[in-house]
């Protein structure tokens, strides 16, 4: 008889337990987490600094930045970020980003950069005139170099992108035209250091 009462009681308790899972705000203390891996600050006097940056999808491309580029904290959108300073105090911005897929394709990406310099979009037929393809090991970079229309402070974008492991990686140097022109050799040398792990 006891058993006959005990079983329904046990079932009722189980069903009631299901109602006890109310969501609550949790509080806990955890050891400090290492911040997401960012390009380390350039060590003074070192020739080049290694900057190995894993992507959200796992280990990504690695590169070695020129010593005179100053690493900035990578933002949510950036895998790498540098200030490139000129002698006259001018600063250009070097950004390294990666997005899944082809991000709209070659033409869309190039026109996006052109839009940032207030340049009109180009068509498919113009691509061969504005792009240069550089193959470096398993990576093939598409290179572009755009000047903004002449104004008080003309800007220039030196950009490259490549596909790796299902993502498209963008390397963009944007800033005052004379400074970007001056940095072009460093940028091209930098691209040669970009490696797949």
């Amino acid at each position, binding site marked *: 008889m006891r058993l006959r009462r005990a079983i329904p009681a046990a079932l009722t308790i189980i069903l009631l337990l299901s109602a006890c899972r109310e969501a609550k705000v949790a509080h806990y203390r955890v*050891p400090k987490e290492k911040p997401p891996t960012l390009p380390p600050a350039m060590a003074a006097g070192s020739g080049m600094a290694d900057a190995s940056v894993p992507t*959200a999808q796992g280990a990504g491309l690695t590169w070695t930045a020129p010593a005179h580029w100053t690493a900035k904290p990578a933002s*949510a959108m950036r895998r790498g970020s540098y200030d490139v300073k000129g002698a006259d105090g001018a600063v250009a911005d070097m950004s390294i980003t990666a997005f899944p897929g082809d991000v709209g394709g070659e033409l869309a990406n190039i026109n996006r950069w052109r839009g940032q310099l207030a340049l009109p979009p180009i068509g498919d037929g113009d691509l061969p005139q504005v792009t240069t393809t550089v193959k470096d090991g398993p990576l093939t970079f598409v290179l572009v170099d755009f000047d903004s229309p002449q104004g008080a402070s003309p800007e220039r974008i030196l950009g490259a992108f490549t596909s790796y492991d299902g993502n498209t990686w963008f390397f963009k140097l944007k800033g005052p035209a004379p400074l970007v022109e001056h940095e072009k050799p460093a940028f091209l040398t930098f691209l040669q250091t970009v490696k797949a792990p």
Partner: protein
Amino acid sequence: MREYWKAFVDFFVSLKLTVVLLALSIVLVFWATLAQVRLGVWGVQEEFFRTFFVLARIPGTEVPVPVFPGGYFIGTLLLINLVAAHIYRFQFTWRKAGIQLVHAGLILLLVGELLTSLWQEEYQMRLDEGQTRNYSESYRDNELAIVDTSNPKYDEVTAIPDQLLKREGEIQDPKLPFRVVIHRYYPNAALQMRNRVPNAPPSPATTGIGTQLVVTPLPLTYKQNERNLAAAVIELIGPEGSLGTWLVSTQLAMPQTIDYAGRTWALTLRFARNYKPFSLTLLKFRHDVYPGTNIPKNFSSQIRLTTPGDHNDREVLIYMNHPLRYAGLTFYQAGYDGDHTTVLQVVHNPSWLLPYLSCALITLGLLLQFGVSLTKFIARRRSAA
């Protein structure tokens, strides 16, 4: 009154009820199998099995109506039916001992499934080679983490689960010097840079990276290879007024920070975390394929398990069908991402033994039942001879 009670008991102990419930469960399983194409495994479990009723929307509206009994409904009635029949007809004789054991095994199986659905927790742990982690992350649940990072040694975390975020209300927590107002919660959303979206509406965010982003709500995805990426618009309000409105999203890996009341707080919407009193380090991930193909042959993770104070510091190898069982958790080799990242499935299921016990009971019961029948049959043949 007695007649009513008798009718009530007769209904629950009747074999007809068992047959009807079994027939309904066959239809439910068949329907759910077809729906799996559209909803995926997780969606089917939620919409067909872990629910009392299968719901459908009235065409042209968002009003849900029950159209078929769900897994919980059928399972609960089957359990009641089985237990009631067991109690009502219980007679202990050796002849019936086998049947009793089989039924006890079935009851245990149903109870086990109920407990699993209530208690089981599934998380995943992604580790890059050389990386150490002391927490796993949920596949589907999110949390808003408001972390006081002022102390140089540790972080004080206040985690608000997405069940509360979905209510889009105000949360006053005694550990926080401000109120958290959830203006909008999007269970799945896309983020785009504002300069790429012409005619985008003004950003609800007044500070942080959200001011440069446009959030677009997306329908929930149930596909196994896709994840819902949530976003929310939250405002922090101190005694002297609003401290700002932020857009947070699981797509934004970097926390957004705010300095207030002499302390620094980091805001992140992230996959819900489950911290452990130990940590795992991925030493080496191996991913072998059959020669000349991309078909995985074997993948394994060499892990170092460490507890604070060096009570435990050992290496383990986790590979297919050889999980690590530790501290009530089971770590399965679930997947990989590239050649240097492993994905472990972390399962906490206090009732994991019940299905094994119930199968053992059912086997024992069947052996006993057939054994008794066989013995009788042989004895009868002997006496006839």
